[in-house]
């Protein structure tokens, strides 16, 4: 594999494939070129959905196919069970698109994934795109083109915005990963930065962060040691303290997780910080010389 986490050989199943979202995005993923080999929908095994076979359980799908990754379009109250099912079936990459999963359920998902050595992307993520090879999740297909910029983000649409800007400026992407907007998610910035730093395909990294928590500050400590350049954009400069800005994690509490603190940490670590999203491509070009 030359890419990180997934590539063009990754076999994917869709949990919740017969729901509206599942069906729509299975078609979109297939259109992007993702190898979707099957779907899971309890009680609907034996049918077809979006042209792929449907199974009653993940185990049934795994008995029939080599499965490398699963993506969940499962309502929040049932998402924990579906995630545990995928992890227990031995699938090594689990992408959880679902939002509003109770945080205690997320603790259980992440704990089980850690025990089994499973990579969990999300919850509350747009997913992961290995540009031109494989898309697992929900981003619109047209903006992602192959290239050498790695993108890691906490938020979804904002990332499409930035990726669209990159693409419009001739900067294709190696891999684009959404960590997820919740307080407890499977991957951290550092986990992904480590992979980008080692990935021969990636020449520079864009980090899309936001206020709240200390994920960006943790990332800054790692960026200090990185050889590849990092450009960051942090959303939420204008957010008032004590208010949760959409994402469960996006809240400034007791003076922690502020925009200023994050920008300062990233700048001190040698990252270039964009003030507005559309400035990112220019900073990347500057960084790459």
């Amino acid at each position, binding site marked *: 594999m030359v890419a990180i986490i997934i590539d063009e050989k990754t076999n994917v199943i869709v949990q919740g494939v017969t729901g509206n*979202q599942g069906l*729509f*995005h299975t078609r979109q993923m297939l259109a992007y070129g993702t190898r979707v080999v099957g779907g899971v929908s309890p009680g609907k095994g034996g049918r077809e959905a979006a042209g792929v076979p449907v199974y009653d359980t993940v185990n049934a799908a795994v008995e029939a196919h080599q499965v490398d990754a699963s993506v969940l379009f499962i309502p*929040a109250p049932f998402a924990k069970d579906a995630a545990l099912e995928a992890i227990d079936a031995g699938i090594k990459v689990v992408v959880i*698109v679902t*939002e*509003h*999963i*109770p*945080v*205690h*359920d997320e*603790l*259980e998902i*992440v*704990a089980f994934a850690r025990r089994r050595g499973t990579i969990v992307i999300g919850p509350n993520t*747009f997913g992961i795109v290995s540009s031109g090879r494989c898309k697992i999740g*929900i*981003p*619109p297909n047209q903006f992602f083109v192959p290239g050498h910029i790695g993108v890691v*983000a*906490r*938020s*979804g*649409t*904002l*990332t*499409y*915005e930035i990726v*669209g800007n990159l693409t419009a400026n001739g900067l294709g992407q190696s891999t684009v990963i959404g960590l997820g*907007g919740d*307080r*407890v998610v499977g991957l*951290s910035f550092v986990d992904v930065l480590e992979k980008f730093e080692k990935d021969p395909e990636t020449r520079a990294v864009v980090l*899309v962060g*936001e*206020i709240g*928590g*200390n994920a960006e500050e*943790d990332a800054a400590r790692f960026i200090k040691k990185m050889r590849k350049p990092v450009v960051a954009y942090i*959303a*939420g*400069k*204008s*957010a*008032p303290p004590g*208010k*949760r*800005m*959409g*994402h*469960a*994690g*996006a*809240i400034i509490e*007791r003076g922690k997780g502020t925009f200023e603190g994050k920008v300062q940490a990233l700048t001190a670590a040698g990252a270039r910080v964009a*003030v*507005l*999203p*559309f400035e990112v491509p220019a900073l990347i070009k500057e960084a790459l010389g």
Partner: protein
Amino acid sequence: MVKLFEYMGKELFARYGVPVPAGKMVTGADEAAAVAAETGAPVVIKSQILSGKRGKGGGIKFADNPAEAREQAGGLLGTSVQGLPVEMLLVEEKLQIDHEFYLAITIDGAAKRPVLIASAQGGMDIEDVPAEYIIKEHIDIYLGIQPYLARDISRRLGLSGQLAREMQRLLPLLYRIFREKDAELVEINPLVQSGEKLVAADAKVTIDDDALYRQKDLPYVDERTPAERQAHALGLSYVQLDGNIAVMANGAGITMGTLDIIQHYGGRPANFLDAGGGTGMEATAKALEILLSTNPRVILINIFGGITRCDDVAAAFAKVKQERGIPVPVVIRLVGTNEEEGVRILRDNGIEAYQVMHEAAAKAVELARS
């Protein structure tokens, strides 16, 4: 995240066997006197508001007898403490305070684990306690707080004998509340040592709002404005702000980014409204109505279609415009999934969509000024 008033938290504690002072929530001065007579004076009278600095703000009073309790309660009710109206009081026995501890369980997002925070320096804001006096212990979610961990925490708090046993009984109860009630925070500050007993003199409990569907029996305080409440019922994230440019975007990050750009260009956002990843026509239409209900100068819609389809958003906009009219200027930026169809629908309704986010924002700021 929803919060519980102190008295709600203490009722919860009591159900789990965590010792709390004898007392009762009251809404009237006579009732306060009755509780004081019942529990036995002296009593403490605490304003039930969601603020950490009630003492300094004059929201906590003491009374030596029922008559005094009536007087103090009457003086508090109907006033405002830290800017919050006092409508309820907790009247409870005044504890003998031999020492104050701090105990809390919350979620450490970076470690992805629950964390127990304890200190023998309780009674003040934990942020003000020097790090060397704070015990932080991550909890293995598969084990919880086993007896051995409770023993070790007691030891590190310097406890022995009966007090250590009390602490060892209390810690697993606190963790059970945290887990069983989907709490984001369970905090006792101070946990008062009163002779050989430990008593929760305060209770701060916040609950994960994504888990409220399975915590139906739990009372909590709804701090949201009517518009926020309405938005939440529709599955939208809405925060009211004090500007005049109403904003709707799809995705928390891009919504924040849109507000940031408005501010950057000198404008003032009226709200944060994340229409979510997969918003359909109906929710989009309702979101528009919420925006209109706040009487903004301009509406800025910023859609980068992923799950959300541009044609759905455009159609919803057209429907609202046709059905009820939209009395303020609207700037729409629309790209992504089914973009062409969306742009066409808007054009049919007399609106030229923007392609570039900051251009749309700049336009909205300009219109708000004029």
